[in-house]
């Protein structure tokens, strides 16, 4: 994939908004919210399956984005990936929290994901233009499925092993090898 060349000092809207957040400008956070919250809620919903938890993840993420905006360094990464990293970290930690303390009969991990979150459906929705899609296609459907389950539904090695009835060691080494071939393909 052609790496985007960015001139130092030239930032997109998200980056500019993050820099304003770092200076304490709440209206900049609101701009990010307007632009990204529906997609963020969608991502959190895929991971957490329950709407109340997904909203909590998005809510916490925005508080964290504002509080930590000063640590965002546009020279080291894109604003959007920084924001989604915060959201995903928060959602995953809520997910692990819920699983750990779960008292209900239907553990969150076993709660049925909607068909839209199925690995092959997600694959089909990936933009044709994305380098990731082309490279995922070089993997066998099963191995591709492991990578997608982990990312899209937030499953751990152990949960993937349980769901696909594979030994844990196999899952770990398949994912590792899939990542390395992806890396080679993506460049």
């Amino acid at each position: 994939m052609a790496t985007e060349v960015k001139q130092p000092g030239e930032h997109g809207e998200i980056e500019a908004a993050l820099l304003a957040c770092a200076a304490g400008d709440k209206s900049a956070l609101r701009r990010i919210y307007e632009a990204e919250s529906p997609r963020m809620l969608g991502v959190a919903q895929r991971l957490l399956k329950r709407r109340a938890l997904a909203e909590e993840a998005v809510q916490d993420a925005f508080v964290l984005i504002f509080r930590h905006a000063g640590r965002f360094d546009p020279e080291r990464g894109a604003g959007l990936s920084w924001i989604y990293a915060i959201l995903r970290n928060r959602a995953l930690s809520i997910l692990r929290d819920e699983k750990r303390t779960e008292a209900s009969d239907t553990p969150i991990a076993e709660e049925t994901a909607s068909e839209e979150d199925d690995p092959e459906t997600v694959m089909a929705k990936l933009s044709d233009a994305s380098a990731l899609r082309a490279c995922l296609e070089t993997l066998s459907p099963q191995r591709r499925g492991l990578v997608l389950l982990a990312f899209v539904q937030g499953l751990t090695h152990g949960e993937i092993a349980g769901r696909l009835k594979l030994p844990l060691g196999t899952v770990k080494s398949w994912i590792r090898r899939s990542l390395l071939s992806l890396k080679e393909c993506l460049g």
Partner: protein
Amino acid sequence: MSPSRDDQLSPPERDALAGEYVLGLLDGAELAAVERRLDTDRDFAASVERWRRHFAALDATAPPITPPADLWSRIEAGLAGLIQPSASASVTAPRPATARTSRFADWWNSLFVWRGAAFAGALATVLLAVGLFGALDRAKRQPLMVAVLLTDSNIAAAVVNTFADGRVEMLPLQSIDVPAGKALEIWTLWDRAVGPRSVGLIDRARSTPLRLDNLPLGRDQLFEITLEPASGSPTGRPTGPIIAKGTTSQRL
């Protein structure tokens, strides 16, 4: 705990570990180690950023959901710190009742009454202290309940002891790596509907009293230690990796 991963990584190892992290596969001590590496290892951080950019295409496939109308106001409340359980705001001391009648005023102003009251109070305190000393001393030494906090790899990292007089303490059993700018926050959870509550924040692993003042305390209550920013979790809930956790059991 896998200190083996803390040293230099070969480029393929680095990229695989960065990929596992971005996929969200890591947990516990492994996650904590990777987050530490992110701050110190530029190549590793760059590899993580590359994975994030590639996998962003997958986040873009999530069907957007319109947030509920009140979500923004909840965020604003969070920014204002309103969500955190605010310490009781009553700082103003209660004012002594103003004397209404002259008889009350006389009594109120009587040195004799107050001397007597002070003396009686002091005497009662001394008697109570003598009587309670033995009981307290016994109660102090014997914990009522104990929770052993285990790491992800089942190493006992700390114990939490609760005592009859309401004291709760945490004693570390392992040194815990705390990166600069971070701290260890201790949480307890007795009811999932309420969520975890912070009961202590320490800069490094050391014995510390836990503040459970008005919180319930019972058997099978969860205690856990997470890695948080030095000033504590900004959200009032655990945000960092779990270092160790365990539940209380009653002493026989």
